[in-house]
C-alpha cells in the first residue's frame, strides 16, 4: 500500500518508524523539541529527542561519540552549510574512526541537512556542498529527489552502520508523491532510472531531477526520448547504472545545481569518460550553476542556477553533436 505524501512528511515518517523500531535511535538538533508539547518529544521522551545549542562541532562530535558507544543518532542540522563549521567532524572524524581502529568501532550516524534553497537566502544559505563530501572513504552521502526515495533512503541511512549524510533539497520540501506505507528501505548506493528513454541520458541530482523530468517531458513532445537517471546516493556512487544508461543512449547531459567544479556532475562525467567512452556518440555536456555564489535578488539568482530551459537546450546541442557555450 502507498499513499500520497509530501517529501518532508516522508522524511519524518521514516524517522518515526525507525525510532519505533529501534530504541537506540535518538534524534536531536537546534530549534526542535523546545517544549513538552512537541510531538516527537511526546512520542519518544526527553532522552531520545533533544534540543541543542548552535554548536555544530559539538552536536556532530557528540553524535559520533554516541554512535561509537551504542546509540544511532540522527542529527538535525537544518542547512547543509551549517555543517561547514564542523566539517572536520564530518570528513575527518566520523568516516575515519572505524578504519583507524582496524575495524573495532563503528559509527552509525545520520547527519540530516537541507540544501540548495533558492529562495532569496543569498550567498551563504543556498549552496550545494555535496561534492565536498564525495569520495571520502567511510562516508556515505544520499540525496533523495522524491517523497518515496526520501522515506526509503532515510530508513536505509538510519539502519546503516556507517556515517551517512542525508541531504534533502529544500526546493522539494512540499512536493507530493506516492510513498509506500510501513517498512520501506531504498538501498544506499543504488541509482534509479526515473524515466526510461533511448536517445539521451540525463543524469541529475536532487531538485535538478525534477527539472530534468520536466525537460524530458518537453523533449518527448518534440519526439526526443530522454532517460533520466538519479544517482540518489552520491557516495557510494552507482557508476554501473549510470554507465549502463549512457552506453545504451550514447549521449549524456549532466545536470547539477552546484557550480561546475564543485558539482557531482563533474565527477560523474569523469567516470563516464573512463567507463563509457567507446559508447559515447557526442561529448558529455554539463549543465551546472554558473561560477558565482547564489545572489539575493530574484533575476540574479535565476540567472545563476540551472533551469529546465538550459537542460532542453543542452540536450538538443548534444543531439546535434555540436558544442555550445555552457
Amino acid at each position, binding site marked *: 500500500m502507498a499513499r500520497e505524501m509530501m517529501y518532508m512528511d516522508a522524511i519524518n515518517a521514516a524517522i518515526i518508524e525507525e525510532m519505533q523500531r529501534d530504541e537506540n535511535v535518538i534524534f536531536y538538533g537546534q530549534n526542535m523539541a523546545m*517544549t513538552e508539547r512537541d510531538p516527537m518529544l511526546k512520542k519518544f521522551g526527553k532522552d531520545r529527542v533533544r534540543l541543542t545549542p548552535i554548536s555544530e562541532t559539538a552536536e556532530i562530535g557528540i553524535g559520533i561519540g554516541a554512535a561509537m558507544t551504542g546509540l544511532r543518532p540522527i542529527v538535525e542540522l537544518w542547512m547543509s552549510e551549517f555543517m561547514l563549521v564542523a566539517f572536520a567532524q564530518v570528513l575527518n572524524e566520523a568516516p575515519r574512526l572505524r578504519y583507524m581502529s582496524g575495524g573495532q568501532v563503528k559509527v552509525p550516524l545520520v547527519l540530516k541537512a537541507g540544501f540548495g534553497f533558492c529562495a532569496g537566502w*543569498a550567498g*551563504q*544559505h543556498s549552496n550545494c556542498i555535496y561534492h565536498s563530501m564525495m569520495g571520502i572513504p567511510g562516508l556515505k552521502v544520499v540525496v533523495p529527489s522524491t517523497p518515496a526515495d526520501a522515506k526509503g533512503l532515510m530508513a536505509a541511512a538510519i539502519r546503516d552502520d556507517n556515517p551517512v549524510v542525508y541531504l534533502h533539497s529544500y526546493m522539494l520540501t512540499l512536493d507530493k508523491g506516492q510513498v509506500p506505507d510501513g517498512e520501506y528501505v531504498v538501498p544506499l548506493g543504488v541509482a534509479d532510472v526515473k524515466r526510461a528513454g533511448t536517445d539521451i541520458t540525463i543524469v541529475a541530482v536532487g531538485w535538478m531531477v525534477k527539472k530534468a523530468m520536466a525537460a524530458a517531458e518537453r523533449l518527448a513532445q518534440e519526439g526526443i526520448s530522454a532517460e533520466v537517471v538519479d544517482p540518489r546516493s552520491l557516495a557510494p556512487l552507482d557508476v554501473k547504472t549510470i554507465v549502463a544508461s549512457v552506453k545504451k543512449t550514447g549521449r549524456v547531459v549532466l545536470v547539477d545545481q552546484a557550480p561546475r567544479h564543485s558539482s557531482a556532475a563533474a565527477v560523474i562525467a569523469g567516470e563516464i569518460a573512463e567507463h563509457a567512452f567507446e559508447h559515447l556518440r557526442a561529448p558529455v555536456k554539463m549543465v551546472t550553476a554558473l*561560477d558565482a555564489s547564489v545572489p*539575493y*535578488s*530574484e533575476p*540574479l539568482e*535565476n540567472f545563476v542556477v540551472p533551469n529546465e530551459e538550459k537542460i532542453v537546450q543542452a540536450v538538443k546541442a548534444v543531439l546535434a553533436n555540436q558544442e555550445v557555450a555552457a
Partner: protein
Amino acid sequence: MPKKHQLSKDRLVWMFTQMVRIREFEEAVKRAFIEHPGVIRGHAHLGDGAEASIVGSLSTRNKTDLAMPSYRCHGYPIVLGTPLRKMMAEVFGRKDGLCKGFGGSMHLADPAHHFPGTSGIIGQSIAHATGAALTAQVKKTGQVVYCFFGDGASKQGAFFESVNMAAVWKLPIVYVLENNQYQAYTHFSLEDANAVAGDPLSKKAAAFSIPGVTVDGTDPVAVHKAVSKAADRARAGKGPSLVETKFYRLSAHGNVITVPPLPTQFPEHEAVAVYGNKKEFAQWKAKDPVVKFRSRLIKTRALTEANAKRIEDAARAEVKDAVEFALASPLPAPEEAVNYVYA
C-alpha cells in the same frame, strides 16, 4: 560615570532619534511583507527591541570606529549614517541597493560608513570583527571595533576562540553579546549552561580573564555607560571586554520559511507561537526601549512632546521615502550575477 561619558541633552535626543529611525525602518520592513508581498525574499530579521543596545553602544564610538554586527544587521548602519534608501533598496533586492541586490537583508555592508559586512553563519563574524581589530592595532589607526552577536552565537566555538585571541593580543574590540533571549525559536535558558545555573551570560568573560558585565539592554544610557568603559579600555590598549545587553526581541525571529512561490510573512513571536507564553511577551513589550526612553526624556525635559513627535514624523517620512525609492528602483539585470566574484 566619568564626565567625558556624560550625555548632553543634544546627545540624548540624538540617541532617541536613532532609536526611532531604527524602529520605523524595521516596522516598514515588516509591513512590506503585507503591503508589497513578494518584494522581500529569503529571510529578513528585525532589530525591534534592540534599539537601546544598538544606539547605546554606538553612541560611544569615535568617528572612524567600526561596527561589525551579525546577520540581524539593519539597526547598526542606520546609526552609522548609511542612507535608508540604499538599505531598503537592498532589502528589496534592487539595483540601487547598498550591495546592488547581491546581499539582501542578512548581508548589508557599507564600508564607506564603517560597516564592512556581515555573515549569515552564526558566530563566524565574531572572528571577522576580531580581525578588523587586528588591522586597527597593526596599522595603529586608533579605531575600536564594536562586535555585536546574539545569545545564540555565544554557544559557537568561533566566539570563544576569537575572544581568547583578542585578549591575548589585547585587541581594541568590544564584544557586545546582545541577549535578546531567543536564538530563533529557542529560549536561551534552554541551551546556555550559565543560564541554566541562573548566572548571567557575561560570566563567560571569566574564561578569558577579561571584564564581563551584564546591563539592562532596554536602557540606552545604561548600555552607553557600560560600553563606554569597555571602549575606553580597548582604546587604552588593554584589550577586549564582554558586555551582555539583555533585552527582548519584539518581533518573531524572522519571516516564515516558505518554498517559492508561496508568499512569506512575519509570524507571531515565539514566546506565544511556540511556548504559549503570552505573559512573558506582554511583560517585555511593556519595557519597549523606544517607548521607555521617550517617556524618560520627556519626564526629564530633555525632550518636549512636540519635539518627540517631530522626530517621529521625520523618521516616518524618511522611511516612507526609502520604501518609495526602493520600490522605484529596478531589479538588477540578470547578467550582473557573474560580477564581483573575484576582485
